[in-house]
């Protein structure tokens, strides 16, 4: 390791650092989340922090922001020691934070969220009108456009993140912490974000960026720190390191950053979709005639900005279309048509017939967070004959099965009694992937397989998906990560506004080409599109069926 671990205590140079942490430790019960952390972030730089899931990155930043109290250690802001007891202190010291899980009030408007906690007086009206003005200025200055009167739940994730950034800027943050900001963004949105961050840096603001994506680290940061198991293992200048080296520092072993796969050997068609349409319960048409085929031994990747109907497509194929929606069209699996509504349309039934489904949201759908790992391994397959007799479940059989899966998928910690909640995001995902892949489904639906997952786990999950393909199964992969789509898929379809905009082969596709399709522009016809997914448009603008 050619990297010099710089563990604090070194004499400060002339200009005080924007942030200096000295010996920060924090334990949650018996878990040591941060252990004697030293960190120095120079003013006017972008500082990256990387580390595996659960390494303690979010905890460290939450301490800096006053959300958690450290057990010991010292914080210096602009050279001044500061006791940060709550977020108010941090805000006053010019620290702003965009959390990994946004801290927004879903049914409040953007404006209300912005002023929450920094209102100018007891009455709202003056604060609101002032904020409206400031917001307009900020929006122009940083190209952060959001409708101030829209409620959060109507915004796409990307826009929600803008609100979080605006919140920090409105509080006049000098030091901005972003915790995995790009996990939910499209490449274009991420690029936009980075342009903003660069602008902020140019103004002399300091930025701390947590991410799992080494490409981003290399692209934008000035310095980078690596955390492992609660400790700070290295801080280096970005220019002096490489992705391979960082990955190794992070995981503690060599990591393959590219998917290794042989060319596909497509077989007979497994999934055939013809003219699939879906109208949701408020009358908006979310799918506008989808036609797709997937063959055995092939991965079809669906690229697209989230909110363009991918979720609805996965739900319909998974057997649980949105409540109150009407679905029409034809879907065949292995030649047999699927019921698209009524009693035959049932996720359990689909599973029995050889469908696997890794859902987009593992915490809300894929797992019961309070169930133990072994119970989650049976979740969705709890009716399977090998898991019990008659109405009774055979716990021993399930546990045996779960232990095997956990071992084979390297879930950490390898205990099947721990509640899903207490695994890190990456390991939660491994449990879901193990459950769905190991059943050898003829058709596997996958939504966002690696969102928020660290590179070690990504490598592992990708390998398993490719193995399943090579075993001759059909795979439908939905992801907002273009990198992931391009490296995993055998064919790429791009979805926009409930339609398939076009199909490409990965070897012929370019990011620019796909990006245009994702924005609703067909390069062939060059029909202009506004690039805004429908969920952000006013619903009235959309054509209705009845």
């Amino acid at each position, binding site marked *: 390791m050619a990297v010099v671990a710089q563990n604090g205590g070194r004499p400060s140079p002339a200009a005080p650092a924007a942030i200096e942490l000295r010996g920060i430790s924090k334990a949650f*019960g*018996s*878990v040591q989340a941060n252990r004697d952390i030293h960190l120095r972030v120079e003013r006017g730089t972008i500082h990256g922090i990387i580390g595996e899931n659960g390494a303690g990155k979010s905890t460290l930043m939450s301490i800096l922001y006053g959300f958690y109290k450290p057990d010991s250690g010292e914080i210096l802001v602009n050279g001044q020691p500061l006791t940060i007891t709550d977020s108010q202190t941090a805000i006053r010291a010019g620290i702003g934070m965009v959390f990994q899980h946004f801290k927004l009030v879903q049914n409040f408007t953007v404006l209300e969220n912005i002023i929450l906690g920094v209102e100018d007086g007891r009455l709202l009206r003056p604060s609101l009108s002032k904020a409206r003005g400031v917001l307009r200025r900020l929006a122009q200055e940083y190209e952060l456009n959001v409708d101030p009167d829209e409620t959060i739940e109507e915004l796409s994730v990307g826009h929600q993140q803008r609100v979080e950034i605006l919140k920090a800027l409105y509080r006049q943050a000098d030091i901005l912490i972003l915790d995995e900001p790009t996990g939910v963004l499209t490449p274009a949105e991420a690029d936009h974000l980075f342009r903003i961050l660069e602008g902020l840096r140019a103004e002399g603001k300091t930025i701390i960026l947590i991410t799992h994506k080494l490409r981003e680290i290399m692209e934008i940061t000035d310095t980078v720190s690596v955390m492992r198991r609660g400790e700070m293992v290295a801080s280096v200048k970005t220019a002096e390191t490489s992705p391979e080296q960082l990955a190794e520092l992070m995981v503690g072993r060599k990591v393959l950053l590219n998917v290794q796969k042989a060319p596909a050997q497509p077989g007979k068609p497994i999934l055939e979709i013809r003219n699939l349409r879906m109208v949701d319960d408020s009358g908006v048409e979310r799918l506008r005639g989808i036609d797709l085929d997937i063959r055995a031994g092939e991965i079809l990747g669906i690229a697209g900005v989230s909110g363009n109907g991918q979720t609805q497509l996965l739900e319909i194929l*998974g*057997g*649980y279309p949105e409540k109150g929606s009407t679905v029409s069209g034809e879907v065949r699996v292995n030649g047999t048509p699927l019921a698209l509504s009524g009693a035959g349309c*049932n*996720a*359990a*039934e*689909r*599973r029995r017939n050889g469908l696997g*489904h890794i*859902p987009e*949201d593992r915490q*809300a*759908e*894929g*797992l*019961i*967070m*309070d*169930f133990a790992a072994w*119970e989650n391994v*049976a*979740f*969705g397959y*709890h*009716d399977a004959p090998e*898991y*019990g007799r008659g*109405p*009774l*479940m055979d*716990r021993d059989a399930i546990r045996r099965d779960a232990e095997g899966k956990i071992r084979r998928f390297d879930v950490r910690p390898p205990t099947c009694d*721990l509640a899903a909640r*207490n695994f890190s995001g990456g390991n939660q995902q491994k449990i879901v992937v193990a459950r769905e892949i190991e059943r050898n489904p003829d058709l596997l639906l996958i939504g966002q397989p690696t969102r928020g997952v660290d590179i070690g786990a990504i490598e592992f999950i990708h390998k398993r998906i490719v193995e399943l393909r090579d075993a001759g199964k059909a795979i439908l992969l939905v992801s907002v990560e273009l990198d992931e789509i391009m490296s995993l898929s055998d064919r790429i379809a791009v979805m926009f506004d409930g339609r398939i905009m076009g199909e490409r082969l990965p070897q012929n596709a370019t990011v620019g080409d796909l990006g245009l399709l994702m924005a609703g522009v067909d390069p062939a016809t060059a029909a202009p599109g506004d690039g805004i997914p429908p969920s952000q448009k006013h619903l009235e603008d959309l054509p209705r069926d009845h």
Partner: protein
Amino acid sequence: MDKMPKWADVILTPLISLVLAMAISALVILAIGESPMVALTTMIDGALGSSYGWGFTLYYATNFIFTGLAVMVAYHASLFNIGGEGQAAMGGLGVALVLLSLPLPHWALALPAAMIGAALFGAAWALIPAWLQARRGSHIVITTIMFNFIAAAALNYILVNLLRPTGSMDPASARFPDATHLPKLSDMALALGFEWGKNTPVNISFFVAVAACVLVWLLIWRTRLGFEIRAFGKSEPAALYAGINPVRITMIAMLVSGGLAGMMAINNVMGEAERLVLNAVEGAGFIGIAVALMGRNHPLGVFLAALLFGFLYQGGGELALWTTIPRELIIVIQALVILFTGALDNMVRMPLERMFLAMRKRGA
């Protein structure tokens, strides 16, 4: 990753909470000018000091087990069934109708028949709120509250106008036939050759209640249906993803819940009163909420909590019967026990956790 050993969490915490509740109760007793020592010994003596006291304690506990289990089962499907009171009342009606209309020659036949009647009526009374929740999204808390009132009115009408023998002052049904009288635990003890709990109402229903605990435990933690109920209760979107039908689970959970609440009637109506009286449930449905929550929604916990409340009920009853302490003191004591063991448990747990953590650190 536990902060403290399981035994400390499961046994030490409630025990200390209980002691705290009793200490405050003692202060209340002092404040109204009575002696806490006398009160405590009267209660313990009256409820646990003799087979006689135990007979009553177990009788009340039987009621609370049924209503506690009822609340618990619904709770696992994240349905808050406040309607135990009405469902138990309707269960009583089911028992009365079965026993008064069918010529059942022996209790061994009458008991299963009455159980079916009780469970059916209780379940039926839970069915409408369940359906409204599943299909129309009407909040189950409101509808079950309303159904308690409606049950009271319906029962009042039925008892006064339909089931009451003419000329009787008492708005109560006729007595059930002698052949259907359930064996009391005291009779069973006598048959085994010793005297236990003479003239106490505890009867064979107690064993039914214990069996119900076991069955409910099996249902919730050992069957596929129970798995679905718990999964649905924890996360509805996940249940949908897994192919669990929300309507079906809501209905089943509420039917089981209502059936359990209704089954309480085999204890109080069939076993004790041997006829249906007005207000036979006497608030057991509401105590079931406390029992389920205190029992941490586990049948064993429900059983223990029901025993505790049976003890409080009987001990308190004795207190009011044989001392000058007003009977409302019991309600205060119950309130304090619920408060300290159910809601203020962290007040005890947090320092304990810190203690154990410190101990472990020193040990390590």
